[in-house]
């Protein structure tokens, strides 16, 4: 019986496609969040302003990851479940 050939091209395509989905998904989620933060910094109520929170202590504004960490995962009002998943999975966002 012949040995099983490793379908390298199959795995490469699957991994690259998944990586693209995660990258663009996280990008979209972070863009959503930045847009919301920008809106909040102009005084629009309805959620936690991470940028404002960081700035009020005289610190640098929080990035998306820091903001996510600062919220203790309590992101319900700011991000959808898929946005949170993408942000957790993507190392670049």
């Amino acid at each position, binding site marked *: *019986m*012949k*040995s*099983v*050939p490793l*379908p390298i*091209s*199959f795995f490469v*395509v*699957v991994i690259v*496609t998944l990586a*693209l*989905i995660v990258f*663009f*998904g996280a*990008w*979209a989620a972070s*863009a959503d969040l930045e847009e919301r933060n920008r809106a909040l910094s102009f005084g629009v109520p309805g959620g936690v302003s991470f940028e404002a929170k960081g700035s009020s202590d005289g610190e640098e504004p929080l990035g998306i990851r820091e903001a996510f960490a600062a919220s203790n995962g309590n992101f319900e009002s700011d991000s959808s479940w898929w946005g949170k998943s993408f942000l957790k999975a993507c190392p670049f966002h």
Partner: protein
Amino acid sequence: MTFTGVAVFASGILLIALAIVPEVNRRLREDTLRLGAMRLPWGLHYCWIVVAILAVVQVLATSISMAAGILLPPLTDPGGDFGWSIGTIGAGIATYYLVGALFAPISGALGDRYGARRMMLAGGILYGASMVLLGFVSNLWQFFIVYGCMLAVTQSISMVPLMASISGWFRRRLGMGTGILWAAGGIGTAILAPFMGFLLEEAGWQATFWSIGIFGGCIIMILTTLLRNHPSDIGLKPYGATSADPPPAPRNLDLERVRTKVFNQHIRRTRAFWNLPTIHGLGCAGHGLVLVYSIPFAVEQGMTLTSAAVILTIVSLVSIVSRLTTPMLAEYYGTRKIMATCLFVQGATVFILFWAQDLWAFYLFAALFGLGFGGEWTGYLVINRQYFGNGPMGSCYGWQMTGALMGHAVTTVIGGLLIYLTGSYEMMLALSIVFSFGGVVVIMLLESTSRVLIPDWELSLPPEARSAPVRAASAAD
């Protein structure tokens, strides 16, 4: 409430259908015997009747996925009955592709096990029930169940085992058979698309899907009486078979199960088994992006909606030429070369869109793109024959359809995300090119089609399950 009532009614019909299965089996066998005694005029081989039946089924099954584009305006109309967002409907369409992708290998395996005819009967019942239920949809969860799940399963059943069964009807000229099948499907789709749009405008949501469901479901079930699983069912040899060809494999449910299992074990050990769904996925992702977003892109470039819609008409019409010729050319010149050429044309023509400002440029793009698009996906049945011979091909083709539908699902997600993020279509177009050219690269990695990759797979079968029983002298060689 109405939806639930109809769902219960449809389930009752399905249960009755299941209860009368032995009766259906008896009738199917009687029909087969009657048809076996019948001769067609002008010496016409029965394979052409099968091609015609499958072309009709293909048109009806394609109308499901085609409906996605036509459904958008009534579903998104804020003043209409639904008023759902494009994102929500996109999620429904992505669900449809995902469920279809997951079910494709299962329906292929069921086709190998129970035969194309029973699958077609099941497909006809499901088609009628699902389309009628679609007419009753009023809530989002109902849309996800009916369109995202039920119709995905219906299309899977109607496309995978039925289209794969064509292989058994042709010993030679399979390329011509599949070419005519795909081309006829393309012509039917080009006619059915505007007809569905017209019905939705004139008759409304419910009447459109009720009439399509009842009419289409009945047509499929009537045609079931004419379809046969194998030429040997009516005492015929496959088209082009000679006395030198091996006799047909034994027809027995247990033996067929063994044959299918062993065949699938063998094909899974080839690189082609993994690469073909990959290529199909990349190809579908490449053209899926363009087919979905070319019209809004053209409108953004200043075209009117009516003139932009002509782009898809041109793509559909021109693709009929390559749908017809690609399988034929693939049979004579090798499927790899032809598939790679079509996929290259599909990718390269997208460059035109980066500079397209005038209507003629969009139409030129549509004509050239249609040639590549029509040929990119129509060679799989031929290449399966070239690589894997005459084994039960349902499951193998099912995995290739999984690749294709996953390509479409990925396209729906990534394309939408890219346009949302960049606010323009350029990145999406570039990605389409990358997908198509990626497919060309994977084709280059395929083995030559000049020889069957698993010529000796039947040696792993018990002697009684082989199509050409090995004589004692040969076995001892």
